[in-house]
C-alpha cells in the first residue's frame, strides 16, 4: 500500500478537502483507497456515526446493504489504522498528521516537518497524477497480513496447501541485564538492495513446489517491539514452505546491503562493530 499525507499549511479546511477529493479521485482510478483523518476533537461519545456505538462497547461496526459500513471505537493509533488498511487497499491518504513517515502534499504556505511531494495553494495547482506517480516510487507500507493476502491471490494458489512466514522484530533485551534497546535504524543501499532481494525471490520461487515468495525489510527508525522484516512463502506443502522461509531470511541477512545501528538507553553503535 502506498501512503500519502495531506496537511493544512494555512489554506483552511475547505481548500484541503477539495485537494483531498481530487487526490482520492485520481488514486481511486488506480486501486482501492483508504482515508485516515486525524482530528484531535474526536473523543469518545462525540462525532459518532448514525446510531453511535453500542453502549459499553469498544468497537462498533454498522453494516448495511452491499457491505457498506460505518465504524467507531476507542484505542486506535494512526499506525494501527494504516496497518489495518494495508491488506486490502492499494493507497491510503492520511489527513492532518505532520509526523507521518511518508511524504505529504502541503496545502498553503507553511513548511512541513517531513518530506513534501508538492506544496500548493489550492486544488487548481495540484497535479494529482504526478503526486500519485511520486508516492508509487516511495517504499510501500507492508504488514505480515498484506503480504499473506498478496500471495493468497496468486494464480497458482489452488496448488498451495501451505503458507509459512517469518517476522523479525526489534528485541529490547538479549539477556536480563542488557541495556534496553529503544530502536534500530536501518540504512539501505538503494537499488542494489532491491536487485538482490529480487534475485533471492526469483531463485526461491524457482524451487519445486514453491509458488510465491515475498521479502520485505523496513528502513529508517524501527522502535522496540515493532516489526522489521517479513518473509512469506506460499508452497504446495509444509516441508518446502518451512525450508524456503528459513533460507529466505538467512539469505536476506547475509546478502542484502542493509546496515543496522542500535540505539540503547546507554549507547548508540553500528551492529557490525559489535558482532
Amino acid at each position: 500500500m502506498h501512503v500519502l499525507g495531506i496537511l493544512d499549511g494555512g489554506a483552511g479546511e475547505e481548500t484541503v478537502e477539495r485537494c483531498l477529493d481530487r487526490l482520492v479521485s485520481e488514486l481511486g482510478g488506480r486501486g482501492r483507497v483508504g482515508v485516515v483523518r486525524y482530528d484531535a476533537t474526536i473523543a469518545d461519545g462525540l462525532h459518532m456515526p448514525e446510531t453511535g456505538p453500542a453502549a459499553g462497547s469498544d468497537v462498533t461496526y454498522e453494516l448495511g446493504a452491499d457491505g457498506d459500513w460505518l465504524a467507531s471505537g476507542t484505542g486506535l493509533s494512526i499506525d494501527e489504522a494504516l496497518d489495518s488498511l494495508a491488506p486490502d487497499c492499494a493507497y491510503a491518504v492520511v489527513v492532518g498528521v505532520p509526523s507521518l513517515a511518508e511524504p505529504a502534499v502541503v496545502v498553503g504556505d507553511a513548511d512541513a516537518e517531513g518530506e513534501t511531494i508538492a506544496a500548493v495553494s489550492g486544488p487548481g495547482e495540484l497535479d494529482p497524477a504526478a503526486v500519485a506517480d511520486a508516492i508509487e516510487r516511495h517504499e510501500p507500507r507492508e504488514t505480515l497480513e498484506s503480504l499473506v493476502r498478496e500471495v493468497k491471490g496468486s494464480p497458482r494458489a489452488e496448488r498451495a496447501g501451505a503458507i509459512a512466514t517469518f517476522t523479525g522484530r526489534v528485541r529490547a533485551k538479549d539477556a536480563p541485564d542488557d541495556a534496553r534497546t529503544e530502536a534500530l535504524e536501518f540504512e539501505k543501499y538503494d537499488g542494489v538492495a532491491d536487485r538482490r532481494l529480487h534475485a533471492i525471490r526469483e531463485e526461491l520461487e524457482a524451487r519445486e513446489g514453491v509458488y510465491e515468495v515475498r521479502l520485505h525489510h523496513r528502513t529508517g527508525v524501527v522502535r522496540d517491539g515493532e516489526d522489521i522484516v517479513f518473509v512469506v512463502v506460499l508452497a504446495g506443502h509444509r516441508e518446502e514452505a518451512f525450508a524456503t522461509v528459513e533460507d529466505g531470511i538467512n539469505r536476506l541477512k547475509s546478502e542484502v546491503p542493509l546496515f543496522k545501528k542500535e540505539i540503547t538507553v546507554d549507547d548508540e553503535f553500528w551492529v557490525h562493530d559489535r558482532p
Partner: protein
Amino acid sequence: MHVEWKLFADLAEHADDRTVAVEVASGATVGEALEELLSDRPALADRVRTDGGLAGDVSVLKNGADLGGDLDDELESGDELALLPPVSGG
C-alpha cells in the same frame, strides 16, 4: 573522468559524506579511485586501510557487483563505486 563513491553506515560517518564524486584519469583502476577518495579523508583512510591493503570487513562494489577485494578493475566514466561495512539487515 568522473566516478562516484557511495559510502554506508560508519564509513559514511568517517567521511562525513554519503556520496563523493572523484576525478581520475581515463582508464584508471578502482584502486586509484579509492586512493583519490581516501587522500583527503584521513578518518576514513584509517578505518578502511590496513598494512596489507583493505581492512578485512570492508567490501568494494562496482555498479552493484562485489569485486571480492580485486582493485585492479578498470573504470569507465559514470561508474558507481561503493564502500560497504559488513551487512547487518534483519
